[in-house]
């Protein structure tokens, strides 16, 4: 309860939460709020905002931008969540293994993580998607492939910290098996920073997904915000609204997630000075 109060005392957190809830609501109720198929060519091309039936204007094929925004929310959020989940699975598994076993296993796994952090991650993602083919599954895979190292590092750090704590040792002495130790004692205590980093990872995932779609590497059947900005790049002179609105949507969503994530962090770790995630 103290935690919730601490969170609510943070103005950034509250604003972020409100924005985030708004985005999620739009995403969930998109078909009700904007009952227009975002792919349907409902109007003439390049209609400006505030045209009849086209509150945010139309794009190069005459499609409703507002519909694209609403339905795009589902795509961007879904991909952000899915890839973060995948990254968490990979990262936590690797980090836990490294932290638990230590020694050679730890050294090898951390070298691998270091390698992934040395190479230009976005380029690896681009290579992965372009090689395997632009589809939803491959996008999620690519984003997860470059997002797991910080999560692994964090998990490892937490495991190292908690492994030798008294309550864990006590449980070990009582004969609890390693699996139980990990699942019942260590993980629950490591959860807080993992969740915070995880939520910030969702924001990064959304940014990476939009960049991939912008470059034309997104799934061609999904209207995402990044795709909309990408399609708008060449017509920026005649139709500024086709790139401004979708990009603003990305900005607001990522900002909201960042605010919430940081407020969570402050509420859970009041003593630690705020550090921005790497």
């Amino acid at each position, binding site marked *: 309860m103290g935690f919730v109060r601490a969170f609510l005392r943070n103005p950034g957190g509250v604003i972020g939460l409100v924005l985030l809830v708004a985005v999620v609501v739009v995403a969930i109720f998109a078909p009700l709020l904007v009952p227009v198929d975002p792919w349907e060519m409902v109007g003439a091309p390049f209609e400006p905002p505030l045209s009849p039936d086209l509150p945010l204007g139309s794009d190069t094929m005459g499609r409703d931008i507002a519909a694209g925004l609403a339905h795009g929310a589902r795509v961007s959020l879904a991909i952000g969540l899915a890839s973060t989940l995948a990254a968490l699975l990979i990262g936590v598994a690797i980090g836990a293994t490294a932290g638990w076993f230590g020694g050679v296993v730890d050294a090898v796994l951390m070298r691998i993580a270091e390698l992934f952090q040395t*190479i*230009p991650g976005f*380029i690896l993602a681009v*290579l992965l998607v*372009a090689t395997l083919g632009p589809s939803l599954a491959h996008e999620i895979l690519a984003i997860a492939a470059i997002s797991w190292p910080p999560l692994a590092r964090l998990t490892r750090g937490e495991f190292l910290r908690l492994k030798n704590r008294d309550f864990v040792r006590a449980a070990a002495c009582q004969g609890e098996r390693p699996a139980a130790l990990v699942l019942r004692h260590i993980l629950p205590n490591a959860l807080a920073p993992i969740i915070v980093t995880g939520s910030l990872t969702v*924001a990064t995932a959304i940014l990476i997904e939009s960049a991939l779609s912008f*470059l034309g590497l997104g799934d061609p059947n999904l209207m995402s915000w990044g795709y909309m*900005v990408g399609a708008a790049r060449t017509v920026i002179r005649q139709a500024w609204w086709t*790139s401004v609105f979708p990009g603003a949507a990305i900005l607001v969503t990522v*900002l909201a997630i960042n605010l919430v994530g940081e407020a969570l962090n402050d509420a859970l770790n009041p003593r630690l000075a705020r550090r921005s995630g790497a």
Partner: protein
Amino acid sequence: MRTMAALAAWIARTLAVILVIASVNFALVHAAPGDPAQVIAGQSGASDETLLRQLRAEYGLDKPYPVQLATYLGRVLRLDLGYSYRQQRPVLGLVLERLPATLLLTGTAFALALGSGILLGTLSGVRAGRWSDTLIGLVALVLYAMPVFWLGLMLVLVFSVQLEWLPAFGYRSVGATLSPLGQVGDVLAHLILPVLSLAAVYLAVYARLMRSSIVEVAAQDFVKTARAKGLTRGRVIRDHMIRNAILPVVTVAGMQAGALVGGSVVVETVFAWPGLGRLVFEALSQRDYPVLLGIFLVMSVLVIVINMLTDLLSRLIDPRIDASAKAA
């Protein structure tokens, strides 16, 4: 002695990284369906078996993968990055031709982000709680959440399309004949918007990091001692606080080098900047394997170099730092 050993270790590590990256690249890119012979043949407007066979033999595409990989790795070590099918020239030449543009972009962006980030972060930190701190914090927050490509497009919209102050695309003006000084100015004018787009996110990161670093340092004893000794605020900040606060920022900057270099792909695409990032994209659609492998390798080396530079910078700032103490 220590430096020689450290240098040797660095070289060995770099070499190992390069070979691993090269092998991974190779496996990745060859895992996909389709082959380059078809690309070249198809683009001639006609294709037939004779041509395909000729092309495959010419580019060694008919040998088994392990042989191709071993040959590739061997050549990489001799700085031979292969031959581009599409562009019909050696990859090394192609990469070296585009490298300066990317170096200019990423180098300037890195320096700008770090420099202004430290400046703004210090400003913010010493005036913690005041409106200037809040303002800088808000700006940083927004910049941090911005998609790089969108920021680029917005800058183009405002400064090129609306105000017509700066050029929208490219490296220099087409067709203009300028004096050498004019040429430099021309390139600089084209450089402004791409650099701003690329630097913005990292500027935000470094500013916020510097701020919290400064706040932490300000609370420490030696600063209080310095103030008690009667030193002016300015001198305290300059001589004591910054030196100590800067370290984590530089360290993080090094760790983010990969992201910065990777971000050049998007920025170069938006601004049609003729660098390696843009080449990645061009080579991708052509399935130009050697070029892709070459660029990825070179960019990884670039990141390693940046890491080394930030490492050196860290040591300069605080000679007590031992490289191995840079923990996870």
